[in-house]
């Protein structure tokens, strides 16, 4: 008796028209954002390529930003080192100030606040997130800066022995410290929002286990909620950092643009890449415009990199405490 294998069946899957249309629309949407990203970086690279070619690696290490003299005897010299360092210093100050506040607000909203207060506070946070940066800049210049200059003076008076808080001259307005404080307020909603999201996912059984061992509410937060949300908080912080690195108008209004690497955060000396572009764009020569495009590309890549890392960390944090 012989056994004959039946011919393998061919399975056909036919999608309905609405399914095909929906897939096409979402695929187009996803591709469109990638195409926009590629176009932006391609445009910046195309416009800034000559500067990269002329200055090479020194574009990243030089602190000079000088246009060529009109008689052509002194050549142009462009470098973003001071502005890159400035971007990082200001963003670091912003993150340093914003993260503890964001953590406290997120924990309060998720585990302590009564429902009615929670709804009101969440609405206020959403409102803060939607304030345009030029409004932040005006508020920072007119309201925050006069007060923050006083705080800077006190910091310099009591902690001036520490290099970070020294100043070359007693002028405390338009410093990286003030720009950092302003940015901290601007990035607070985004960090708080991500922190709330991850803290709310802390496992209920672990929380009960901590209570079941006689832990206080704060002890439970420390043992379960904070470790569980650590990855997400880092990711949220990186997202805030991404915004802080790229912030333009608000920083431009409260910071004194000086082309010098400066770690004295209270001194009226600073700048970041975005404010450099905003400050010089209007009066730039055609060649300087190319240098600004190159600076823009550096900022674009840096921000993209930070956001990629942030997304990866937030995604990984969903798996639990790291």
């Amino acid at each position, binding site marked *: 008796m012989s056994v004959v294998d039946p011919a393998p069946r061919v399975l056909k899957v036919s999608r309905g028209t609405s399914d095909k249309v929906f897939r096409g629309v979402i695929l187009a949407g996803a591709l469109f954002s990638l195409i926009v990203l590629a176009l932006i970086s391609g445009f910046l690279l195309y416009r800034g390529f000559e500067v990269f070619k002329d200055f090479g690696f020194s574009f990243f290490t030089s602190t000079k930003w000088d246009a060529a003299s009109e008689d052509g005897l002194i050549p142009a010299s462009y470098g973003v080192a001071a502005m890159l360092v400035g971007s990082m210093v200001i963003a670091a100050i912003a993150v340093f100030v914003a993260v503890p506040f964001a953590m406290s607000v997120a924990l309060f909203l998720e585990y302590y606040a009564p429902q009615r207060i929670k709804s009101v506070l969440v609405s206020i946070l959403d409102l803060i997130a939607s304030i345009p940066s030029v409004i932040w800049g005006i508020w920072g210049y007119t309201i925050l800066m006069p007060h923050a200059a006083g705080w800077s003076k006190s910091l310099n008076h009591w902690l001036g022995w520490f290099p970070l808080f020294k100043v070359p001259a007693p002028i405390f307005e338009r410093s990286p410290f003030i720009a950092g404080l302003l940015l901290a307020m601007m990035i607070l909603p985004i960090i708080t929002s991500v922190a709330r999201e991850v803290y709310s996912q802390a496992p209920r*059984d672990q929380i009960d286990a901590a209570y079941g*061992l006689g832990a206080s509410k704060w002890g439970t937060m420390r043992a379960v909620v904070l470790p569980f949300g650590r990855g997400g908080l880092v990711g949220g912080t990186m997202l805030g950092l991404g915004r802080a690195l790229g912030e333009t108008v608000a920083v431009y209004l409260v910071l004194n643009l000086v082309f010098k690497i400066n770690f004295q955060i209270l001194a009226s000396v600073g700048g970041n890449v975005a404010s450099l572009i905003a400050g010089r764009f209007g009066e730039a020569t055609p060649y300087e415009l190319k240098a600004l495009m190159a600076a823009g590309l550096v900022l674009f890549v840096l921000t993209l990199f930070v956001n990629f890392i942030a997304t990866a960390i937030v995604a990984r944090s969903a798996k639990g405490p790291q």
Partner: protein
Amino acid sequence: MTLIVRGTVGRGNFRRDVDLAVEAGGVLGIIGPNGAGKSTVLHTVAGIERMVSGSIVIDGEVLDGPGAFVVPELRRAVVVFQDIRLFPHMDVLANVAYGPRSHGAPRAEAAERARAALASVGMGAMADRHPASLSGGERQRVALARAFVTNPRILLLDEPFAAVDTDSRPGLREVLKNLLAGSTAHALVVSHDQADIEDLCGSVVVLGVSEKFTD
């Protein structure tokens, strides 16, 4: 020196009348069908849930009742959950030291007490391991050490061996029996396993059918 729970416990729409008492150093078994409210009773005594009505009184002190509620951290009550619930991001030593640390013990003292507690359940050599690398039986031993290390006033064991294979249960039961013998806690044990109740409990209350005490 008696723990008395008398009144109604519940969660959501669920309600259950209870009336039970256990002496210091005594072990009361709670049995009953699924959904009878056994775990709810334990959670309420621990302070994770609140009494719907009635009161919980220990040695004359009202833990929960009209106008009174003692928060969990001040009850000196610990729960051993049926699904064990060790903290996955802490090693075994940190898991056991967590209780003493929560009650204000300095880090070194908490670690010393945790090591002693681990030794008492035969887990002294595994202090540096993480829960994920332990077997079910080993995890349950750690959970027992974590419960007894704080020298609790109230000990609440919710199906303590439910997550352990049947071969490991007699050994674990022996460990728990020894720990209970050296403790002055008021202990409540919920179990579906007849052997647990017979070996560990001095008296039993049946929930969900008709509540009554048997000695």
